[in-house]
């Protein structure tokens, strides 16, 4: 496969959610994102932050091949995206585990869809579950797990078929702050050890700074890139990092930028 070297390229991306009805009762279409340009390099961890409704999830869905952009181009590993790809793993805000399958079988779901479940795939999932602190839970059903464990299973599932690109749409959004912090540290380790490229949608500024090599700030709807911040930290992130003034400084900068864009659009 010929690649241009970029993991993901978004060029002039625009999306409009269709309106419905005609005449006076018409609901107008909503422009969700507009003129989004972004390039993600292999091995990067890029977070996209922005106010609610700025089209963050829309961008992710376009990369995943679940939505087609109204205008602009989406390329993954140099190829135009025409639909869901096998080399993308995705985890959404809800874990959406299948309740009738056990943990192992839930993780193997994408592998199954793409072909036969091999011994190698099982081994890989076993390793992933181990790294996610879920060793010994392989034959448990989702209802026997806590919310945090379910989200970790969902991330293992996203990685199960050894995708080159990991897409995460607020996978820890529904967890309490403490669990979330632990998940972030775990995710950082999993990302480092796997060497994957990852894109995370979040509205948690701390979370974005803690995890990312770059943080992309979107404006209010229609979302467009207003700034890209590069947290100046080594790849391995720790809880201690969050207590440093440097960390607070980066977070503060992003927060200011988010507020500025909101005021400009709103006022």
């Amino acid at each position, binding site marked *: 496969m010929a690649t241009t070297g970029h993991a993901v390229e978004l060029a002039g991306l625009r999306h409009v959610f269709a309106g419905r009805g005609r005449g006076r009762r018409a609901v107008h279409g909503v422009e969700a994102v507009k003129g989004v340009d972004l390039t993600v390099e292999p091995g990067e961890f890029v977070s996209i932050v922005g106010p609610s409704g700025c089209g963050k999830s829309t961008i992710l869905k376009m990369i995943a091949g679940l939505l087609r952009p109204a205008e602009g181009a989406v390329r993954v590993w140099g190829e135009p995206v025409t639909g869901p790809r096998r080399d993308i793993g995705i985890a959404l805000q809800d874990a959406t585990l299948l309740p009738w399958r056990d943990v192992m079988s839930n993780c193997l779901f994408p592998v199954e869809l793409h072909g036969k479940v091999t011994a190698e795939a099982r081994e890989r999932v076993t390793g992933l579950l181990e790294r996610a602190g879920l060793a010994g839970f392989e034959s448990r059903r989702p*209802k026997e797990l806590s919310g945090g464990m379910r989200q970790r299973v969902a991330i293992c599932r996203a990685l199960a078929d050894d995708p080159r690109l990991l897409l995460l749409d607020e996978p820890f959004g529904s967890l309490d702050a403490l669990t979330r912090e632990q998940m972030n540290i775990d995710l950082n380790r999993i990302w480092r050890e796997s060497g994957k490229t990852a894109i995370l949608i979040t509205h948690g500024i701390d979370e974005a700074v803690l995890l990312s090599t770059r943080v992309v700030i979107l404006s209010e709807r229609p979302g467009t890139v207003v700034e890209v911040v590069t947290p100046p930290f080594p790849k391995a992130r720790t809880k201690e990092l969050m207590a440093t003034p440097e960390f607070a400084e980066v977070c503060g900068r992003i927060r200011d930028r988010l507020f500025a864009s909101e005021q400009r659009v709103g006022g």
Partner: protein
Amino acid sequence: MTAPAPAANLGAAARWGGLVAVTAALLLAWQILPSDVQGDGSSVPKLDAVLKALGPSGEWGAYLKALRVTLGEAFFGLLIGFAAGVVLGVLLGESRILRQGFYPYALALQALPPIALAPIFVIWFGLGMQSKIGLVAAATLFPVLVSTMAGVAETDRGRIEMATAFGASKSQIRLRIVFPGLVVPIFSGLEISVVLSFLAAIAGELISANAGIGVILQVYQRDYRLAEEFAVLMILVVVGLALALLVRLARRLVLERMPNE
């Protein structure tokens, strides 16, 4: 973090104690309270008379023979109604055109009390088991159909989106997301239908039949044998409860043993 340990054993005495006490009190009251209100022996038979009718000197042979017929009708009728309900439910759930065309008919037919069909079914299928089987099938079809259809239509959007994102085809989504998700709704339909199957079989027999619980109930009524009548009612309670428990047990077994796919 792990699943909570079941604390069921702790409450066993408390759970069953109340039931045992109430049952004992009711049986005692039944035996000692004056029940012959009209003074002609026709009101309520005493407990010991009912127990005698249930005992070795009673008519166990007749009860069992009738029960076998009735349960047979209920079983085969339910089998037909259940199978048709699942198949039609999936079809109507999957296709909007079929749903729009046929669902109003399904609703209209459901509004028709199955008992009202009994005379026609007897004319069509005769006095034997066939007419009752048809009646049971008609009565048990709709709960299964409606819950299956709802199960298909209400498949979790998030699960479908997740599978689509991983590249699942339409048929993969149907086989791996929609169908496995139907087990729970199908069982809730079945729970209703099992009760209905017993009810429809006996109701059909009461209207016209040559064998079954409905028939012996009518015979005992005609002969004023109230103790036997009550004995049959007690058997019906036990059988009805057993059927409901059986469905629950089946549901649990199926959900626990569901293959990992």
